[in-house]
């Protein structure tokens, strides 16, 4: 067990976003959080990464503090691509791994301004930025958003390699991608877990 949640509630401005969340995140597994827009997926992911604290309930994590995660609306710095990519290096003061930056073929965009890029190109930079830092846990909020089919396929291939040695927790809308990558699945509706199970049982029980 890497993260353990018991009867977790999360409220903001007296509005309940998550309720009665009971969950075990297993180390070395890929956990996929699914659900409609506004179901609480991103909030749950941020809570699991300790960016936000639960309003009540029991929370236990092996991670001492938050790790760099991919947000649904990532930080865009009004500067060059390379500045946006290397900002994590500046803050963390670590050597970075350029594999994803090169695989996504972003070297030729290095000196361009972020606001001149397409949404898909930006997303590839944001993913590469997170992947540039060697960490054994990945928190990814809809990593495939805005990507074209070819880039999405590359993302899946790269994540398939990563999952062999890392714990991945990600939100996704696409069931086909979820089936390819996931080991454990959670389906949220109105802030509650409607269903959670491993690959075989989840898709048998899944009623939609």
């Amino acid at each position, binding site marked *: 067990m890497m993260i353990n949640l018991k009867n977790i509630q999360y409220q903001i401005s007296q509005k309940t976003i998550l309720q009665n969340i009971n969950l075990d995140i297993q180390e070395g597994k890929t956990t996929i959080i699914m659900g409609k827009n506004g179901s609480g997926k991103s909030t749950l992911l941020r809570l699991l990464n300790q*960016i936000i604290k639960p309003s009540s309930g029991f929370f236990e994590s092996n991670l001492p503090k938050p*790790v*760099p995660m991919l*947000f649904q609306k990532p930080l865009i710095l*009004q500067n060059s691509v390379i500045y946006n990519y290397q900002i*994590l290096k500046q*803050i*963390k003061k670590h050597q970075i791994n350029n594999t994803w930056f090169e695989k996504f073929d972003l070297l030729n965009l290095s000196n361009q301004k972020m606001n001149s890029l397409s949404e898909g190109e930006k997303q590839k930079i944001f993913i590469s930025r997170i992947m540039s830092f060697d960490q054994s846990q990945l928190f990814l909020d809809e990593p495939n958003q805005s990507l074209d089919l070819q880039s999405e396929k590359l993302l899946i291939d790269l994540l398939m390699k990563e999952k062999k040695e890392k714990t991945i927790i990600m939100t996704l809308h696409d069931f086909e991608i979820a089936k390819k990558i996931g080991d454990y699945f959670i389906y949220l509706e109105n802030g509650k877990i409607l269903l959670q199970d491993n690959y075989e049982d989840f898709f048998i029980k899944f009623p939609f």
Partner: protein
Amino acid sequence: MLDTSKVFEAISISLHVSFVSTLFAFLLSIFFGYLIATKKFILKKYVVSVLGSLTSIPPVCAGLIVYLIISRSGPLGWMELLYTPSAMIIAQFIIIFPIMVTLIINYIEREYPQLRDELISYGASQKDILFLLITNQKGIYLTTLLIGFGRAVSEYGAAAIVGGSIDHVTRNMTAMIALETAKGNILIGVTLGAILISISLIISFGINFFKNDD
């Protein structure tokens, strides 16, 4: 006959007073804007609301308030600020500070939560977050600066009440336009008016430039 030395003097007084009031208002707007936007405190809603209301304070009223405070019988009368450029700076500050701080609060309230969450996940310190908050959208700050300066330089009522339009000391462009036009020296009025409009246009172009640059 156009007395160019008087015109240049009025321009110089206007620019000096407006520059200093804008600079003070800008620095304090960043400081208080950041504090108000990022910290939780009782009455926060009311502070923001009052500042919002003060953005449209009539300049003559701001001038009147400053006058009552710094006049000989006022609480700060002993400082002998009335009819000095310092009094004009204070009056302009009162007019532009609410505008500038409200713009900065709005920007930080919009950007800060997302920026903070992601930067916290990167292990950033509060200093890193503040640095990126200020440097990431330089255009917003420059636009705020230009809006404040534009309002200060074109303001007449407050500066006239507390400055007194004293020749060589507090007679700025707007005071000189009013005075010379009243005296029938239309040429000086028109010349200064044209210069003031040019400054406003330059500021407008500046604001658009920074908007596009972002």
